[in-house]
């Protein structure tokens, strides 16, 4: 085993363990904090796979923005310290089926698509900003632009839904 592999295994274990804790802990805010640990460990895995840029973007966007947004949302509504007994949902089985199905599909697709692909971990330029940028804007421009349109549509949708004055009128008319 090389040094990178020696570090990769515990990092992967941390990522997996904390992800399980995110969904099993019965303390709401701690679940979000475990998510930070999981995302951080994942960033570490990216680093070991020579994907430096992806690792830092992962920390910047997910830990720095998404989890902060989550925590803000939790604190805005309710953020009890200690255990919450009512966190278990009746949909557990359905959620488990959906999660396993999604994971199975993703793993099958990725393994099928990249079975023979390999990168040389000793070559630091494989995941550098230059390589990622060149690949993105030379070969994958269309998917990249499609994704940005999708995000823009989601953004506009969120604004329309959240603004009462331009959104659809409440049908029952009883509120406000």
């Amino acid at each position, binding site marked *: 085993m090389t040094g990178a592999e020696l570090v990769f295994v515990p990092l992967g274990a941390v990522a997996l363990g904390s992800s399980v804790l995110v969904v099993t802990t019965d*303390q709401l*805010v*701690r679940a979000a*904090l475990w998510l*930070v640990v999981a995302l951080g460990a994942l960033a570490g895995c990216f680093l070991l796979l020579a994907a*430096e*840029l992806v690792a*830092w*973007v992962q*920390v*910047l966007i997910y*830990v*720095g*923005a998404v*989890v*902060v*947004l989550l*925590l*803000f949302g939790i*604190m*805005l509504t309710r*953020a009890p*310290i*200690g255990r919450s007994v009512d966190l278990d949902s009746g949909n557990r089985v359905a959620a488990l089926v959906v999660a396993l199905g999604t994971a199975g599909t993703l793993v099958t697709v990725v393994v099928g698509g990249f079975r023979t692909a390999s990168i040389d971990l000793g070559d*630091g330029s494989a995941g*550098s*900003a230059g390589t990622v940028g060149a690949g993105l804007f030379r070969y994958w421009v269309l998917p990249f632009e499609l994704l940005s349109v999708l995000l823009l549509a989601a953004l506009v949708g969120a604004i329309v839904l959240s603004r009462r004055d331009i959104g659809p009128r409440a049908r029952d008319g009883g509120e406000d």
Partner: protein
Amino acid sequence: MTVAGVLDVVLRLVLVVGAFLLLPLLVGQLEHKAMAHMQSRVGPMYAGGFHGWAQLVADGVKFVQKEHVVPTAADRTVFSLAPAVALLPYLLVLAAVPVGPGLVAVDLPAGLFFALAVLSVSVLGSIMAGWSSANKYALLGGMRTAAQLLAYELPLVLAGSSVVMAAGTLSLSGIVLAWRPWWLVWQAAAAVVFFVSGLAELARPPFDMPLADSEIVLGPLTEYTGLRFALFMLAEYAGIVVLCALTAVLFLGGWRGPFGDASLGPIWLLAKIFLLAFVVIWVRVSTPRLRSDQLQRLAWLVLVPMSLGQLALTGVVKVVTS
């Protein structure tokens, strides 16, 4: 790795830790004295004899002696972890700041993204402190911290990206090498946006809504005492040092100076850091605190458009000159 190589790494890390412990104290002392003189006072005069130079050492000793109090209803683990989460990221960022040609503890190819990513983690410390204290003022402060971070993260990253586009590299050393004096004009808007957003991320006045001592006691820090409180204070001043160092490296040419050879590099960088730190203190003394709606308005209606305009300008100039 040879013995010399290991010694080299150890020496660099020791220097970084030394700077991390010393520079925030110097900035703190500068704040004591500069703020006092701006308000027609003399500030600390007794500790250490000469103009109260040892005041912060005395403060540190005082903090160490104080009792640790953890509120009964608090989440003990998160409460104890929060100061470390707030402080350590700044140490990591400081290790990536180049202080001279080839003089950098860890030279990362994507250094700027590393710095921005790690900086955003330290804000989690304040949010954790605010929530785990089981105090309504602390919780309000934590929420204000989160709202402020969300608003100012975007202009910060956009302003940084503008320099990256201009220099054509994400590496902090590479940006300093590519820097030219006329960038002071070209990247002026980005520099202002970066510095102001950085101040807001640190929750320094006039962006100290999350702490707002006249409204919510001391926000997330309300319940902290003794050494843990001191660590949060250290994090604030370490944050100033890191923000000033990053601004100097990105927009003011880092270790490059108008005269003298490369060996003067660290001195030029220190001079720029302390000049910017003085501006941070000056702003604190001279501007009133912004309300939360004014904060959001400034971020979304002034800083974001400014940084987008700067990005467009950078792109146009880059295409025209290349």
